[in-house]
């Protein structure tokens, strides 16, 4: 006998405090821990309401459908759109791919010019590169040393045959937030479809797709304290009505734009995550920012030759991408191994290429190899900040003692003047 579904519309309790850990997690732009309240919302959809949301003929299906409908409303409320404008996907990468490929295929007759930025995530960059090889013309707008795109450069780049603009809302690497409102207005005036990759930042920033003139918006569940394996794509239905060529075919789900049975528990989780973000984004923003600022000050005042990457003010509150000059990033991570972070160093990538985002900033390549990304989040605490600062400074000092470059710097040698022996 199917139990009745409890609708969790009441205001959620405070952020649960998590059990203390010997490890400190500061890699929230790679992924976030699933909020316990999200997990609670999901579980009944594995064990009780496990029907296929498209099964029209029985209450298992109706219960699943109801969970999905609620999630659609919750996501819509977060970004100020209609629930029917929200499509569910398997995650941010799929949403970005659907936006890029779906639009380019549908509107290729109209034009083959697409504009994007030099600091996109690979889930936009890679499909665009593939289109380029297939005959599309792609313009990559440059950024300044803070990672900011000048909206004027977008205006200058738009042509008669431009059909699509794709911009990352906030960089997952350096946290810089773009002026998407200005860009949305430019695109609207030019009649060009505007996609924003908002996979990072929805937990603290406010994105209003109407006010900002956004036509497509990619969302990632696991970057906003929801589960992995689920995301969403906002697709505008009116003024303009955006159409997409489906990339996954085999049914008729999601208004014909994304076929396949819905990941009901995942979607319910994404919805709950969206609801929590809406409720606490303002409070979280301030709390996370003050933790980050304290950490940043501890680094810049604790050591010399420390550089912060990203825009000083227009930056995500949890983002702290910092270069400890003369200390290589991977070795620093190894030296503070109980703190989970990332680095832009080439040594940490599987291709041995340094981060393309950091390169686009035009900073010294050495600062790329010495960069560490701390990304604080909802569950970061004061105590964790203290521990991370202590470990990092200790490791950085030790590695400077070990560094021939630090030695040369201390001896007053200008490293730029040296002819290095390398292949």
């Amino acid at each position, binding site marked *: 006998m199917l139990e009745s579904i409890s609708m969790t519309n009441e205001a959620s309790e405070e952020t649960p405090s998590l059990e203390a850990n010997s490890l400190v997690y500061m890699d929230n732009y790679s992924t976030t821990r699933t909020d316990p309240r999200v997990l609670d919302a999901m579980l009944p959809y594995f064990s009780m309401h496990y029907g296929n949301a498209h099964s029209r003929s029985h209450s298992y299906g109706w219960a699943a459908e109801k969970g999905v409908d609620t999630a659609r409303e919750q996501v819509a409320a977060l970004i100020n759109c209609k629930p029917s404008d929200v499509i569910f996907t398997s995650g941010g990468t799929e949403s970005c791919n659907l936006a890029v490929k779906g639009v380019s295929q549908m509107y290729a007759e109209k034009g083959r010019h697409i504009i994007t930025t030099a600091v996109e995530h690979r889930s936009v960059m890679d499909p665009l590169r593939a289109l380029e090889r297939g005959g599309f013309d792609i313009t990559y707008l440059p950024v300044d040393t803070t990672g900011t795109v000048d909206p004027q450069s977008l205006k200058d780049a738009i042509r008669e045959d431009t059909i699509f603009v794709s911009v990352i809302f906030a960089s997952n690497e350096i946290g810089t937030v773009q002026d998407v409102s200005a860009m949305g207005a430019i695109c609207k005036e030019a009649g060009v479809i505007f996609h924003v990759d908002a996979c990072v930042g929805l937990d603290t920033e406010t994105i209003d797709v109407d006010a900002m003139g956004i036509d497509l918006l990619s969302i990632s569940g696991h970057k906003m304290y929801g589960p992995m394996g689920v995301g969403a794509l906002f697709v505008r239905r009116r003024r303009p009505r955006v159409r997409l060529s489906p990339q996954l075919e085999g049914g008729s789900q999601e208004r014909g734009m994304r076929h396949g049975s819905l990941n009901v528990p995942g979607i319910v989780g994404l919805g709950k995550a969206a609801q929590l973000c809406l409720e606490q984004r303002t409070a979280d923003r301030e709390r996370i920012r003050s933790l980050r600022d304290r950490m940043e000050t501890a680094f810049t005042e604790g050591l010399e030759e420390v550089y912060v990457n990203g825009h000083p003010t227009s930056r995500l509150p949890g983002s702290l991408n910092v270069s400890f000059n003369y200390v290589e990033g991977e*070795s620093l991570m190894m030296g503070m191994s109980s703190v989970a972070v990332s680095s832009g*160093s080439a*040594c940490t990538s599987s291709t041995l290429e340094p981060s393309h985002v950091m390169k686009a900033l035009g900073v*010294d*390549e050495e600062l790329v*190899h010495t960069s560490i990304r701390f990304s604080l989040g909802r569950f970061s605490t004061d105590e964790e900040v203290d521990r991370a600062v202590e470990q990092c400074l200790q490791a950085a000092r030790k590695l400077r003692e070990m560094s021939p470059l630090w030695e040369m710097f201390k001896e007053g040698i200008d490293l730029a003047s040296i002819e*290095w022996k*390398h292949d």
Partner: protein
Amino acid sequence: MAYTDKVIDHFENPRNMGSLDKESTEVGTGIVGAPECGDVMKLQIQVEEGRIVDAKFKTFGCGSAIASSSLATEWVKGMTLEEADSLKNTDIVEELSLPPVKIHCSVLAEEAIKSAIEDYQSKQSSD
């Protein structure tokens, strides 16, 4: 990909980290790599009667690079110049169980040794 114990050991307890007097005619200094590549190794040897009696290193690079150069100084101590010159990077790879993506660190360490020997020898011939 977790770091292997040996690589971590060389980082936590580096052997022969430091500097020798680069002006001395008994010392050969090899500096290889480049900051923009993310790898720079400085390896120095002190030679007496054709044998390496001391060796020191300083490295800017990942854990595997630090371990490779640290291991190199450990091995060359007590070797003749000929023996040190014939050290192969593959020996380092095997000892540290370096994965394919880190093999270039061992190559750089081999180059650092050769560069130090070359520097020492050039000082002898100019006397």
